[in-house]
């Protein structure tokens, strides 16, 4: 039986917050959240039982690491993610819980863009952070959300002022070296009429680990704003991950997600886009590879509140060995969201007879005047495709590799930073081998 008593108490949270000079409002949020974490149940991802997973037990809540004096100090695998030659980098690197490197171009600074670690943001832009912190994901949704708010110990804050268009991507790299607990909080705010691209990587540099990762990312595309959010997660085996990426759109706001979920440990990933404003748009593209004995649950949901909203979900997953991957796709149109369109497609490719893959497309529609559609399939590599490629001289393994890469291409091709795209291809290569 898994221990459910929380390992950290009010006193700990109070001193943790005080040490970081956090404003009172945040300390209060943390304390209230901690109390709720004790009462609230775990989330219930459809078709995966997680009550025996360890989300709460760890001995050390933070580890201190040294900031980087140069990016050259990073391990090769991490360096490969970064364009080291670029002069004006827009880059944040975090080593476990420590903000280790930050660079923002003069141009973006001059335009009033905020791109900084979450602790600095809390101190320097308290009101702004307060407005958005745990507004996309609510503290009382379930135990893991509450625990996250109480214990968050890393992350980044991005704010793009009204009508500012950022043409270069902002990149965040979260390096997991030895932390037992990473509670990362990411906030992206694109204010009215602005535009921004943010790409994050979670990467473990240790082979295996016994760690708890609890990530919340809150993305706000205010009226007429446009956010592109790319992510590649590649946390090691032994890391139990809960990751919740949430988007909220204003009128004619747009959020596009491209997520490469490549963790090697058990993972619950939730990605919900709430299309609040009329005429807003949400597009979620996800690729996933499951291997070994890992169990993963991916819930992607677009919820339509505004009229004339459009929501698209595309998920492609590969499952091999004895891995289990559950794909839940939910398109929900609330009453009043007339003239909206909800589309989704989930495809699962099974590479082993012992793998388990499950695609569950769900449409929940509470409005007449809408359009919606879904397609889902679970299958194996098409023998005719294999035959076709082999008939041109390509050996079987290479042909399979081409088919798998092709299958995952719709998301891989969307990643806007070349080095990250390359890394995603490499991780896929490693995982499907």
């Amino acid at each position, binding site marked *: 039986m898994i221990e459910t008593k929380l390992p950290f108490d009010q006193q700990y949270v109070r001193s943790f917050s005080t040490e970081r000079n956090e404003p009172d409002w945040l300390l209060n949020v943390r304390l209230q959240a901690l109390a709720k974490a004790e009462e609230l149940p775990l989330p219930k991802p459809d078709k995966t039982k997680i009550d025996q997973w360890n989300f709460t037990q760890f001995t050390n809540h933070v580890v201190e690491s040294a900031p980087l004096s140069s990016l050259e100090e990073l391990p090769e695998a991490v360096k490969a993610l970064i364009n080291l030659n670029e002069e004006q980098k827009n880059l944040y690197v975090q080593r476990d819980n420590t903000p280790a490197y930050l660079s923002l171009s003069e141009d973006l600074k001059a335009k009033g863009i905020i791109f900084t670690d979450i602790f600095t943001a809390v101190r320097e832009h308290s009101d702004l952070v307060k407005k958005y912190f745990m507004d996309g994901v609510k503290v009382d949704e379930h135990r893991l959300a509450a625990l996250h708010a109480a214990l968050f110990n890393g992350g980044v804050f991005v704010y793009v002022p009204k009508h500012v268009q950022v043409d270069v991507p902002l990149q965040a790299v979260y390096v997991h070296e030895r932390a037992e607990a990473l509670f990362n909080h990411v906030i992206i705010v694109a204010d009215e009429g602005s535009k921004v691209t943010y790409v994050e990587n979670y990467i473990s540099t240790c082979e295996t680990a016994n760690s708890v990762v609890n990530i919340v990312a809150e993305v706000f595309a205010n009226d007429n704003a446009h956010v592109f959010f790319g992510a590649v997660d590649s946390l090691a085996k032994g890391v139990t991950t809960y990751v919740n990426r949430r988007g909220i759109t204003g009128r004619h706001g747009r959020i596009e997600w491209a997520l490469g979920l490549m963790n090697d440990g058990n993972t619950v990933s939730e990605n919900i886009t709430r299309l609040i404003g009329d005429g807003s748009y949400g597009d979620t593209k996800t690729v996933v590879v499951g291997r070994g004995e890992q169990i993963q649950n991916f819930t992607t949901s677009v919820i339509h509140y505004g009229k004339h909203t459009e929501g698209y979900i595309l998920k492609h997953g590969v499952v091999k060995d004895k891995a289990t991957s559950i794909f839940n796709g939910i398109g929900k149109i609330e009453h009043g969201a007339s003239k909206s369109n909800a589309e989704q497609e989930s495809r699962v490719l099974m590479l082993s007879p012992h793998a388990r893959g499950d695609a569950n497309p769900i449409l929940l529609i509470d409005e007449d005047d809408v359009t919606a559609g879904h397609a889902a399939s679970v299958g194996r590599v098409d023998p005719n495709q294999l035959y076709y490629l082999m*008939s041109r001289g390509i050996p079987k393994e290479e042909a399979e590799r081409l088919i798998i890469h092709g299958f995952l291409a719709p998301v891989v091709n969307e990643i806007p930073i070349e080095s990250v795209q390359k890394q995603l291809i490499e991780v896929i290569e490693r995982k499907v081998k």
Partner: protein
Amino acid sequence: MAVLTIKDLHVSVEGKEILKGVNLEIKGGEFHAIMGPNGTGKSTLSAAIMGHPKYEVTKGSITLDGQNVLEMEVDERARAGLFLAMQYPSEISGVTNADFLRAAINARRGEGNEISLMKFIRQLDEKMAFLEMNPDMAHRYLNEGFSGGEKKRNEILQLMMLQPKIAILDEIDSGLDIDALKIVAKGVNEMRSNDFGCLIITHYQRLLNYITPDYVHVMMQGRIVKSGGPELAQRLEAEGYDWIKKELGIEDEVVEQEA
């Protein structure tokens, strides 16, 4: 000079015998055409030569320059010099035409001897121009969303890029408009040399107006029942197959009636 030799070939699909003793020899420099009514085993013959896993050879032999083709995997057959332009080419999403072709060329050349990107692009551009293909086709996903005619043209592009010893073209003319037909024929004729032999499966004399075969064979009920020169194709176009059936005393197979 390459020789593909097929002797007394019997092939079953899902337990049903389709080919019932096919004999055929194709040498470098020769163009053969096979004609015959629907469902008589023409595509089955091409699939058996290429090694499609569903088609089981129960008797007979296929050799390429004396090597036993039946012992080879599909990819080995291709690398040995066989090529099949398929009646229904597969679509492969996410893999660009160019990437696919480069993988196929490099598979033949082997590790350490890969074609340079420059050289590859030059060859590809050249062949695509020759086949009057839109350059965009190189970067589109393999056959995905290609029209019927575009798929056929893409098969010929592969033929020209891969330069096999023996090619089988299964209904390369179906679905082509008259201009496309001429271009496809131009591609095949461009391949003509003493090092290249070709088996053309078609229903129509029309294609053979542009690609002149040295031999024409008629397949019926899983056998080659008649062989001749180009004039045989003309007679088939004019008179159909009934006269052959009559001449050879072939009865139409009784179609089993479902109760």
